[in-house]
């Protein structure tokens, strides 16, 4: 009951006892299988996937089935008794530094195991239909299994070193998958861009890991967080910079402004990749890292100042990228910008000190965003185009895709009682709480931004639904519903998108809060103890308003839709369509000045200053040379030079017979020379 009391209290909770947790028994001890099985099966697919009847898909699916079953089993057990277990084996010891491979089984990682497993299972099943006939089918599933396995390595890491290993493996797998259709150069470029942007942010991660690990003297999360709990003064001094550097790393993987540029381009990969990347793996890694290190950011005297940066970055991301989603024609890009926006919500929640709210949104978002991408993929599969201007009226042709996409959209827009409503409301409540505590005016402003973001979310999702499924079909051919192997995962995720929100209803059922709190340290986060009806009402109202506005604008026949969609607001539209010129800024802002004024100035200097000096020198030299040439050179020196030249030539002719090209003769000369040198040295000394 002490545990319940602490969990229900609103606000700072430091000083309370950590809840009594079970060690998870056999299930937790064998949890190392969760990352290992996918990675082992990945190699199995590479080596003999092509010889199997289903070309390696069955191994990939088996891996995800295993992870899903294991993850859900752990999840259920955690919900029952709360698990906290940490196992590790020593891999190597270099000096005083111990390299460990381990696995963490606590509330946070169990939640991630379950999400990766369940969403992964749906996506892998779906991918069997979507990737049918692909020339690199087996390779795709190998890389895809590695992608999921890498994320599980990251999630199961008990120390920062293993986290980096998983982190980089995720980056590698994403590189391979985004560039899956590498025949097209643009896809290569997108893969490289994702990799490089992530690498730049990874510098922050490395710096943060080094600062914190060296200061604490250990890379293990438990040691670091215990140092925070004990108020370690050495760590407190560097905590701000270390925490900031870690957050910069998280910004790269979770695509926060201004590192968000890689994520929309990552749509170049096959749709199942986008789905898994946006739902469960990769982009959630950054939020997961902040969640894992949460006490560092939440405890007074440590990296608490980073939270202000976090909340600003999150608010910028959620608002700006939401607006861009309004003008995209590519349905996957709409969803990609929507993911960015939702990641902004998660970051804002973390910045407001709401550990549960941020991760709860991660949890619900995984289901409905995975669903939306799969449904979009189903549409793309049917009409062979990514552009919504080629779609329209698909409601009649693809009933199941339509229904599930609608569920996903409503969940994302935050309509009661779907999953997104609960998690978004929780974030709004946390912001409201933070604004009346240490967040102050900033949190209040961000709260307003977040509510505006909810409006935009509903607005662009309404647009996507109407342009895709209403009006008249504008593409070519006859679209048809996707095969069952693709629709069943949609339905499964659709059900989860409806019910996932019930895992955490403030004041009624706080299961999720307790599940996530099953960790050895006190998180000390804020979370609501009861539904804030005013805020929930506002959130729901703006979402409905957004949908109404979208309906008003786009629920017409195809011709009007197009006209409406091409209706451009003079200043705003070009800014949005060009993504705030950030890509241009990176390309031209860095390269431009060097190419422009600086280059022009250099050229001018070159032409007028340096050239004239050079020309002057040249003229003087020519004058002097003429004297020298006629006087000394022709008469005196040439004779001597010619003599030397012919002498060298004659000598060369004579000596060339010694270079026989036979290496053994050279070797004999070498050893004889060495011996002679030694003998000479001995005689001299």
């Amino acid at each position, binding site marked *: 009951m002490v545990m319940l009391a602490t969990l229900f209290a609103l606000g700072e909770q430091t000083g309370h006892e950590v809840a009594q947790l079970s060690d998870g028994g056999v299930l937790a001890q064998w949890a190392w299988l969760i990352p290992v099985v996918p990675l082992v099966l990945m190699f199995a697919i590479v080596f003999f996937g092509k010889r199997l009847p289903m070309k390696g898909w069955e191994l990939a699916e088996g891996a995800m089935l295993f992870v899903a079953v294991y993850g859900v089993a752990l999840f259920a057990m955690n919900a029952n008794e709360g698990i906290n277990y940490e196992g590790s084996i020593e891999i190597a010891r*270099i*000096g005083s530094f111990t390299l460990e491979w381990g696995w963490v089984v606590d509330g946070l990682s169990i939640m991630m195991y379950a999400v990766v497993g369940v969403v992964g299972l749906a996506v892998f099943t779906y991918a069997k239909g979507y990737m049918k006939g692909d020339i690199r089918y087996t390779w795709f599933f190998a890389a895809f299994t590695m992608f999921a396995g890498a994320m599980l390595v990251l999630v199961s890491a008990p120390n920062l070193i293993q986290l980096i290993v998983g982190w980089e493996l995720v980056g590698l797998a994403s590189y391979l998958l985004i560039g899956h259709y590498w025949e097209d150069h643009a896809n290569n470029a997108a893969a490289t861009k994702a990799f490089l942007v992530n690498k730049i942010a990874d510098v922050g991660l490395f710096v943060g890991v080094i600062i914190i690990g060296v200061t604490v003297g250990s890379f293990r999360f438990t040691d670091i967080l215990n140092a925070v709990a004990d108020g370690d003064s050495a760590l407190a001094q560097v905590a701000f910079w270390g925490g900031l550097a870690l957050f910069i790393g998280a910004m790269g993987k979770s695509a926060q402004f201004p590192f968000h540029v890689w994520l929309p381009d990552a749509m170049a990969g096959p749709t199942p990749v986008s789905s898994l990347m946006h739902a469960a793996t990769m982009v959630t890694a950054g939020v997961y890292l902040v969640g894992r290190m949460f006490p560092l950011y939440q405890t007074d005297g440590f990296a608490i100042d980073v939270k202000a940066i976090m909340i600003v970055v999150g608010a910028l991301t959620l608002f700006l990228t939401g607006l861009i989603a309004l003008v995209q024609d590519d349905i996957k890009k709409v969803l990609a910008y929507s993911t960015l926006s939702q990641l902004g919500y998660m970051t804002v929640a973390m910045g407001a000190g709401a550990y549960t709210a941020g991760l709860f949104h991660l949890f619900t978002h995984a289901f409905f965003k995975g669903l939306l991408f799969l449904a979009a993929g189903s549409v793309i599969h049917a009409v062979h185009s990514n552009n919504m201007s080629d779609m329209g009226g698909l409601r009649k042709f693809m009933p199941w895709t339509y229904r599930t996409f609608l569920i996903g959209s409503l969940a994302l827009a935050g309509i009661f009682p779907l999953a997104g409503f609960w998690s978004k409301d929780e974030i709004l409540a946390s912001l409201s709480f933070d604004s009346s505590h240490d967040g102050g005016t900033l949190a209040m402003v961000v709260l307003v931004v977040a509510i505006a973001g909810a409006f935009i979310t509903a607005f662009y999702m309404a647009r996507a639904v109407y342009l895709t499924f209403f009006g008249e079909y504008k593409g070519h051919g006859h679209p048809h519903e996707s095969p069952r192997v693709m629709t069943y995962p949609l339905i499964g995720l659709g059900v989860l998108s409806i019910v996932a929100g019930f895992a955490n209803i403030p004041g009624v059922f706080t299961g999720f809060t307790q599940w996530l709190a099953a960790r050895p340290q006190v998180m000390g986060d804020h979370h609501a103890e009861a539904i804030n009806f005013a805020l929930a009402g506002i959130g729901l109202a703006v979402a409905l308003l957004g949908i109404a506005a979208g309906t008003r604008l786009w629920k017409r026949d195809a011709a009007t839709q197009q006209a409406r969609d091409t209706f451009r607001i003079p200043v705003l539209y070009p800014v949005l369509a060009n993504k705030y010129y950030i890509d241009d800024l990176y390309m031209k802002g860095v390269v431009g000045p060097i190419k422009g004024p600086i280059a022009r100035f250099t050229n001018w200097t070159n032409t007028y200053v340096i050239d004239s000096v050079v020309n002057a020198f040249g003229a003087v030299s020519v004058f002097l040379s003429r004297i020298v040439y006629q006087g000394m050179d022709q008469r005196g020196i040439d004779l001597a030079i010619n003599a030397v030249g012919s002498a060298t030539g004659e000598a060369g002719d004579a000596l060339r017979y010694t270079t026989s090209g036979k290496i*053994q003769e050279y070797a*004999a000369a070498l*050893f*004889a020379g*060495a*011996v002679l040198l*030694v*003998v000479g040295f*001995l005689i001299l000394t």
Partner: protein
Amino acid sequence: MELTDWIADARNVVFLVIALAMLGSSVMVVTSRNVIHAALMLVVALAGAAALFLMLGAEFVAWTIVLVYIGAVIVLFLFGIMITRAPTKADPVRLDHKRRWPALIVALGTFATMATVTTMAFGDTPMPDGVSRSGDLGDVLFTRFVIPFEVVSFVLLAALIGGIVLARKDPQT
């Protein structure tokens, strides 16, 4: 030191036996008319070296010689001999040069110089008794010498890749 004093030490007798075996087999390596025999004689010479290392207390090096040289490198040589179809029967014309005297002079000169120098420098200095320190060797290999150790592993990797690149058949031709 008199020869009789030297030979009185039982270990020196062992040394002498090993050394003579090594010398005999080494001479066979460079003179044998059968390439396979030459490679197998190298095994004997290397086994002798391993025995010497055991006498000197360097047991780890000794077993490395056995495993790496005798186990792997010699097999590699035998493969090389097979692939290049080197004459495996007596074939003096193709195996050695006719001009052996310059080579013999250079070799003897090298030996004479080195033997003179070492004798001048060391004379009768006794060798300390060998103590097995394999544990220390492991420690020192992974602490003080860890960077050279890693560099050597890169050399091996480069050699591996280089070997593959060189020996593989060009798919175009």
